[in-house]
């Protein structure tokens, strides 16, 4: 390893790869110029670090500002673990609530009177059947009444049309007989006039 191939500053600053460190150290032990350069770097660093840090003139602190603070639901929403915990807690509460509220199966069911249930079911079925039949009857009667009314209207129309026709025939016959009477009367007058 030569001086030009050694990154002495990287070695001094602790930035050299571990694999190269041994080679650099071997070279520095053998090369006086590099040893002196390393010493100059150390002295310079010591001088730089003699510069003490100043205390901050005043504390930098922030007060709670409601404008910038997230709302309670934003806080929960942005907190993944808290959100997960809340979801799990709600699910557990729902399961427990369901377990307490739902109807209890087993021995209680065995004490129920099945005859009463059958009677109630039968009554309910009969009531619904009667209601359905009554409704069907009402609908049928309404339909028949409507049909009857339609027939009556049609008959009245036909009767009126027939009456009008008969009236027209009668009027025509009356006019014919009147015309014949007028002709006969004229003929009778003509036969009387030559004899005078």
């Amino acid at each position, binding site marked *: 390893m030569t001086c030009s191939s050694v990154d002495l*500053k*990287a070695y001094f*600053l602790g*930035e050299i790869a571990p694999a190269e460190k041994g080679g650099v150290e071997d070279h520095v032990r053998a090369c006086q110029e590099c040893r002196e350069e390393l010493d*100059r*770097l150390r*002295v*310079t*660093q*010591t*001088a*730089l*670090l*003699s*510069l*003490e*840090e*100043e*205390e*901050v*003139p*005043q*504390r*930098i*602190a*922030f*007060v*709670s*500002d409601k404008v*910038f*603070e*997230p709302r309670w639901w934003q*806080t929960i929403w*942005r*907190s993944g673990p808290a959100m997960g915990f809340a979801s799990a807690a709600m699910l557990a509460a729902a399961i427990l609530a369901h377990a307490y509220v739902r109807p209890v199966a087993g021995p209680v069911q065995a004490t129920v009177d099945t005859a009463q249930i059958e009677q109630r079911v039968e009554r309910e079925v009969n009531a619904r059947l009667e209601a359905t039949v009554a409704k069907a009857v009402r609908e049928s009667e309404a339909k028949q009444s409507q049909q009857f009314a339609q027939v009556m209207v049609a008959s009245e129309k036909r009767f009126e049309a027939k009456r009008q026709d008969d009236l027209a025939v009668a009027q025509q016959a009356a006019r014919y007989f009147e015309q014949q009477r007028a002709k006969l009367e004229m003929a009778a007058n003509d036969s009387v006039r030559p004899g005078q």
Partner: protein
Amino acid sequence: MIFREVEDRDLIAKARRGHVDAYNVLVSRWEKRVFNYLLRLVGHREDALDLSQDVFLKAYQNLRKLEDPAKFPGWLFRIAHNEAYSLLRKNRPEGELAVEPKSGEANARMFPIELSLAVQSALGLLSDDQREAVLLKVYQGFKFEEMAEILACPVSTVKSRLYTALDLLKQTLAPVNMGGAE
């Protein structure tokens, strides 16, 4: 050190949920380092304090954007770097380097010890980029990779700035060191 890291992570998690008190504890742990970094970078106490407050306020407002709490130090110094350079660009024309040492009167108040003055003066001879590289490496102990993230530049650039700065500091501080050794 590990215990401290865990505690910082907890404080960050609490601060993210809106606990200002937790964030204040975090600030109290880091304010001295951030303040001194900014003080040595901008060279003005009042500016450094104002910048420090801005840095911690911005960090609080953007804390939810920090993906890995373990990277909080580098992330915080990245904000500090941006704030400092905004001020430096505003106070200094584009491209001008900080070749002038800081005011001797001001430095005398800040660093009364002779060696401290010499160091402060030597740091003032560096460019902003070179000085910042020294501050992040020598005083804050960041790795090259972390510095590259803070400064938003390649590692090769970080090394170039730092190595040049160390060569300049060696030359500038050599008489002081020799005098101190005598």
